[in-house]
């Protein structure tokens, strides 16, 4: 998993974007709410002006705004909201939505058969399977329960007995949303628990010892049986405690290892081996990322490393928000791998914050993981990896620097290193043993890690997320919970939209509208892409109309559109209008795939950042507020009995 630049934003950074306020989520939210309210008022005015004349129309609209502020919001009562929420909850449960949960659990019992048993990373497979399955299922259910309820009440007129009570429109909308969220939560919790057991049980397996050799000094080497399409080899070291059990560890295969315990009988002979459960497969690594700068081959600081070509992977437009919409930043957010040339002064310098003994308690040093890329300009020995070096340096006193630790780059894999607590190094002219926390780390807990490539004419590629410290491991259960929280947030979003649409549309239409919103949210990045190419004048086959014309004429996408000038202008004009409006709509809709991507964290064994979850939560809250306002407004101005 490679992280996008925006994934590193802290919550505050995301909300405000101090350097480029146009990208700020807060600004986007405010603009969205203001626009929606303005648009709503204008539409409402036009509608009621047609009905009642311009003067009366204005009065009607003004009154509903006045009512919201003066009586409906202050008059909103929690008891009424609760009563309405409970009703919505009971009603949804009566539609037997819980059956779906039962089906889900039963489905999980059999799902294991269909998941590729030979996968090299079964944990990832299992986790991403359950998470995506739950996610789509819950969103679908949220769509159904939220959109049909209010229209049904209006249709069979039970709403008459509600709105003739002192019930505010605010309470009807909020009550519905809360009730459905309660139903959704009730479904999500058992699904989450079932998923947890599905993953943990699904990965559980056993081996037997098939081969064992004593290699001397009380050391043993052996092999485990081939089960579940893999086997392990292991070594048992003589234990320090002569009476204690002899413990050994297998190698890591398919993301996990086993503990092998040697049990001796009373006569001191080896009796049997006990193989522990797999561990290490379900992880929630808490990475600490640093900031990255490069030096070029002459040793001068630069922001970017060397571009070896095709390394600027598209990383999505992310939260570029208003800035992208108004065309200030056109470019997609790009994820750069910068390269460092071997055998030169070129290097990548990571600066980590918050490196304190309290946080990194491990006696053996600070665990650091690297997922580096390699680029070879000469063949060399293709089997052995490239050599790199790690140097630690004090950011405030650059004269204090450790001797380089060399390592072999494992391409396509994550390699684990440890930054030892004591290391030989130089302090100006003096060569001495440096203490990691006293000499190399500054008082405020900063540390520089410099990575170089040793082999000449070979290059090492790095990006911010490629190197990180690992102070701790969070629990897998908690990480899964966080993924489910993210699903829950998406569900809340869909429910809010569903209820909003159901205040003025009939059930099926409201469902289609909500579905369209979700879909547009999911395809947002593609729409941004089309607009991006359109702005750049790069022909990618054009917009929808042009594509249709090409399709009908069986023209290739890469040729100029072969129609006369005027027709071409018209087609492109219409396309531009469609694309720009779609772009605006997609920008204003919740970016669900971003939220869906938290599943990727859990599947890759990374702790889901609190900041990321907080961002999703705030965005959800914003959209709920928006949906609430729109829903209120429509319900208020709606002639219930018409």
């Amino acid at each position: 998993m490679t992280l996008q630049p925006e994934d590193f934003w802290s919550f505050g950074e995301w909300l405000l974007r101090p350097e480029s306020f146009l990208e700020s989520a807060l600004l986007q939210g405010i603009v969205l709410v203001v626009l929606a309210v303005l648009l709503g008022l204008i539409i409402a005015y036009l509608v009621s002006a047609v009905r009642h004349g311009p003067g009366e129309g204005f009065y009607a609209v003004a009154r509903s705004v006045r009512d919201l502020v003066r009586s409906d919001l202050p008059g909103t009562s929690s008891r009424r909201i609760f009563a309405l929420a409970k009703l919505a909850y009971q009603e949804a449960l009566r539609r037997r939505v819980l059956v779906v949960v039962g089906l889900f659990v039963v489905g999980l019992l059999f799902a294991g058969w269909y998941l590729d048993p030979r996968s090299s990373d079964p944990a990832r497979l299992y986790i991403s399977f359950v998470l995506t399955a739950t996610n789509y299922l819950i969103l679908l259910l949220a769509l159904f329960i939220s959109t049909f309820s209010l229209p049904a009440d209006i249709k069979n007129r039970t709403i008459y007995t509600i709105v003739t009570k002192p019930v505010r429109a605010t309470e009807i909308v909020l009550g519905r949303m809360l009730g459905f969220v309660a139903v959704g939560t009730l479904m999500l919790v058992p699904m989450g628990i079932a998923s947890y057991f599905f993953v943990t049980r699904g990965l559980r397996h056993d081996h037997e010892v098939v081969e064992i050799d004593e290699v001397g000094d009380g050391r043993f080497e052996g092999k485990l049986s081939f089960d579940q399409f893999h086997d392990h080899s292991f070594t048992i070291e003589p234990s320090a405690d002569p009476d204690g059990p002899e413990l050994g560890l297998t190698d890591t295969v398919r993301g996990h290892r086993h503990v092998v315990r040697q049990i001796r009988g009373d006569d001191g002979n080896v009796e049997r081996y006990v193989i522990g459960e797999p561990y290490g497969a379900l992880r929630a690594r808490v990475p600490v990322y640093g900031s990255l700068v490069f030096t070029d081959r002459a040793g001068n600081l630069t922001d970017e490393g060397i571009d070896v070509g095709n390394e600027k992977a598209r990383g999505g437009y992310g939260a570029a928000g208003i800035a992208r919409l108004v065309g200030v930043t056109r470019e997609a957010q790009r994820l750069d791998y910068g390269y460092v040339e071997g055998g030169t002064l070129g290097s990548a310098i990571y600066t980590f914050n918050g490196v304190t003994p309290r946080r990194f308690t491990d006696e053996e040093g600070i665990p650091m993981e690297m997922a580096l890329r390699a680029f070879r300009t000469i063949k060399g020995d293709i089997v052995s990896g490239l050599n790199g070096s790690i140097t630690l340096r004090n950011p405030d006193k650059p004269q204090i620097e450790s001797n380089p630790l060399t390592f072999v780059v494992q391409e396509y894999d994550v390699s684990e290193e440890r930054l030892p607590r004591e290391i030989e190094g130089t302090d100006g002219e003096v060569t001495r043993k440096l203490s990691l926390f006293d000499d190399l780390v500054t008082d405020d807990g900063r540390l520089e890690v410099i990575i170089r490539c040793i082999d000449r004419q070979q290059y090492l590629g790095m990006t911010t997320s490629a190197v990180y410290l690992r102070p701790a491991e969070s629990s897998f259960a908690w990480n899964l919970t966080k993924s489910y929280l993210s699903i829950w947030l998406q569900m809340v979003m869909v429910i809010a939209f569903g209820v909003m649409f159901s205040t003025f549309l009939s059930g099926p239409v409201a469902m289609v509208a909500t579905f369209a919103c979700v879909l547009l949210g999911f395809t947002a990045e593609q729409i941004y892409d089309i607009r991006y190419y359109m702005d750049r004048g790069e022909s990618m086959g054009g917009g929808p109309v042009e594509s249709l014309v090409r399709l009908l004429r069986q023209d290739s996408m890469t040729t100029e559109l072969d129609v006369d000038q005027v027709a071409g202008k018209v087609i492109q004009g219409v396309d531009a209008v469609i694309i720009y409006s779609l772009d605006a709509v997609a920008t204003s809709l919740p970016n669900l795939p971003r939220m869906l991507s938290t599943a990727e964290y859990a599947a890759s064994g990374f702790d889901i950042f609190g900041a990321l979850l907080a961002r999703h939560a705030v965005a959800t809250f914003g959209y709920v507020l928006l949906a609430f306002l729109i829903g209120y407004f429509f319900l208020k101005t709606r002639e219930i009995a018409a």
Partner: protein
Amino acid sequence: MATEPIGLADAPTADPAASPGSDVVIETRNLSKIYRDFWGRRKVAALKSLDIEVRKGEIFGLLGPNGSGKSTTIKLILGLLFPTSGRVLVFDQDATETRKNERIGYLPEESYLYKFLTTDETLDFYGRLFDLSGAERKRRVDELVKLVGLEGARHRQLREYSKGMTRRVGLAQALINDPDLILLDEPTTGLDPLGTRDMKDLILSLRDQGKTILLCSHQLSDVQDVCDRVAILHQGELKELGRVSELLKVQDVTEVHARGLSDAAKAEISEVILRHGGTVDSIDNPTATMEELFLSIVRESERRPGARRVSVSDTASESPTAVATATGDDAASRDEGQS
């Protein structure tokens, strides 16, 4: 709301905050309603320039054939519909004002209730909508269940109910907040004669507690029995408005009720009438209404359970209640009460 809802049995509601200085509870001014379809094209002019005033403490009847705009008027008063032109004021507030609902009880045409709730749950739910406290709700639910006679069925879901039972729940929910103004859309449909009678008695007793009642019906007897004033609608237009006693009074006919007259005496009375220049339309024994007969049978059977002996010669005039000779319903029921 300043008013604490008080029990049904309590004395007339005196709400000093309510419409100070004016007795008018509902006022419609030039009220018109045109139903339109989705595209705004007019379909039906359901109400045309209605001007009525309903005063505090009276029972006001809206009378008219099917489709004459009675329900439309009530929905406009409740703010369920918006007027096409004109205005409705309820308690001197606009009809779309939500807060006025705290003092209103509404029984819809059909009971639009949640079928999966029980009576208790339904009433508790609507009590919550009035922001009543838990203790208050419990007290009122118990009271109302007793009032509408559903004690035996209070824990059953409404979808198991008969039409009349649902109607009773509907009535109970309309009274949950001890309203000052009660709007009843055809209150007696679906009720058996006994229920109808109870309903009428209830309406009268609510009036006696100082509440204002607006009801609409096409059951003329209902209106005649309970209403103080009526408005008669036809095709959305107001045709007649006034006190029931005056509207129904036939100015040039005199009615005499007497008991124990011989045929000779009757002949002599005719003679007297003729001598004074009047005409005799008929001299007859009055027949009781079907309603009276039904009521007397039910009450009889409640006193003495078991099958009633029915003989072919049984006629209304021979049945114990048919002895009653009074014409008015009130008199009839008083009579039965004594026998």
